[in-house]
């Protein structure tokens, strides 16, 4: 991957007007990856995630001559990609209110036989998040990764605040269950390490 010097946001915005091809190149390399990942947390389809990130850059490209960004470029792109992802969900008319309420989750559980270190707990949490039911995962992700309030999530997904509350508490309960026995395990592990 070709190296590029570190540009500040304002330098990049100026460059976008003078040497737009070079600027878009740098912007793409700096931000594309996080944008794809951010969509993928909401829409579990890598190809679609990449298409949407491409669309954001394409729109930025189209507006390159007149674009004014008041926040940081990253914040601007984050917002743009989020809106894209949420629009996409709405287009697909995801059935937020008919989602199954009793998922058969095969959540990995921290059992007392396992030696759990922080890394393993992290893995368990990651798996649990991936396996949350769709509506639950999306609501949780918007709270966790986009730091949106209940009200904002409700507005963006066009669902009630009550539904957001329910989905958040459901997600947290499942996450809690997954790691519930950690203390005993960590202590046990520490003791075992002392002896062996």
């Amino acid at each position, binding site marked *: *991957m070709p190296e590029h010097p570190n540009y500040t946001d304002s330098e990049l915005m100026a460059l976008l007007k003078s040497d737009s091809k070079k600027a*878009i*190149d740098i912007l*793409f*390399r700096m931000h*594309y*990856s996080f944008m*794809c*990942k951010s969509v*993928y*947390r909401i829409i579990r389809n*890598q190809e679609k*995630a*990449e298409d949407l*990130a*491409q*669309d954001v*850059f*394409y*729109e930025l*490209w*189209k*507006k390159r001559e007149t674009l004014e960004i008041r926040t940081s470029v990253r914040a601007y792109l984050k917002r743009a990609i989020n809106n894209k992802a949420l*629009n*996409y969900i*709405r*287009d*697909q008319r995801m059935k937020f209110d008919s989602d199954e309420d009793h998922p058969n989750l095969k959540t990995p559980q921290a059992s007392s036989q396992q030696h759990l270190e922080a890394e393993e*707990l*992290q893995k368990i*949490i*990651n798996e649990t*998040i*991936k396996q949350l039911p769709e509506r639950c995962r999306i609501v*949780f992700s918007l*709270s*966790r*990764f986009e*730091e949106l*309030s*209940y009200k904002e999530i409700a507005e963006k997904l066009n669902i009630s605040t009550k539904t957001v*509350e*329910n989905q*958040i*508490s459901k997600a*947290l*309960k499942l*996450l*809690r269950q*997954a*790691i*519930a026995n*950690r203390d005993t395990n960590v202590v046990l592990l520490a003791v075992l390490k002392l002896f062996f």
Partner: protein
Amino acid sequence: MFQEEYINLIHRSLQGGISPVEQEQLNNWLAASDDHQQIADDIEYAWNLSYNFEDDYTPDVEKGLAKFKARIEEESISIEQPEAKVVTIPRRRWLSRIAAAAAILIATSIFWINYNSSPNTVQTAMNATTEVRLDDGTIVYLNENSSLTYPKKFDGKERIVELKGEAFFDVEKNPNQPFIINTTDTKVEVLGTSFNVRAYEQEVATSINVKTGKVRFTVLETDDVAILEQNDAAIFNEKSKTLNTLEDRSQNSFAWHTKTLNFEQSKVADLINRLEQLYNIQITIANPVIANCHYSYLGLKVDEDIKNVLKVIETSSSKFKFSKKGKNGYILNGDSCPN
């Protein structure tokens, strides 16, 4: 309060979105039992770990960049073309010059330009469709209550037509002369492809469904753009000013042209909507249970009498029964979903 509600309070306190009164409420609950405190600790722990959530997914940036560059190169072909300049000369002025021999020559050439570029308009009535063949070989199927304005000859850098209402376009491929459809709110640009545009002025939405090829759909007011490929659809809502894209493999949006509907595990509501729109009828669902059923049938012919279409649905579903109600109404009966 239920435990769930305290979980929400714990969560909001972690997020920093809790009022002093709620915090007080939460503190009391936590102090009431060690179990409560344990729940809060676990949730905080899980919440903090979830911050580091990572998918096993690393997008290929270089590949993405190459694709992106190809896209802006390709799009620049049609973006950067200068607009075709149309020179119009008021008729009165050229009439006054008609005396001079030289003017006659000018007038003749103006007439020739006017003849070739002055637009034709085809308008369809209610319940009528028509087929228009354009100079470049493009075929436009115009749905009812629609009008298409087009030049007799496409001699600019672009082939520009204007649409009100709904039409299915089968555009002759010509990469050097993009085909552009202007509607009241949107602009559609293509090189060669087939697709359906619905832009009735009395409806709030303008929509496009692409059957083959690649189309660029631009909302004039917001400058929003959607690039659409096969089986993609886009809808612009004039009220909310939003442009949304979706996938639609059914091709049902241009059933008025293909005379065929496709249902693949489709909601009964969708089936009913399509039939109502195509036949200008009203269908009432007698039993709410039926509304949530799914129905599959590929290639349902809709070029004949509605009675025959309903019969086919009855037979194929083996669960639905239609009965007539009033002049343009039907009732869908049944007590369970088709298998």
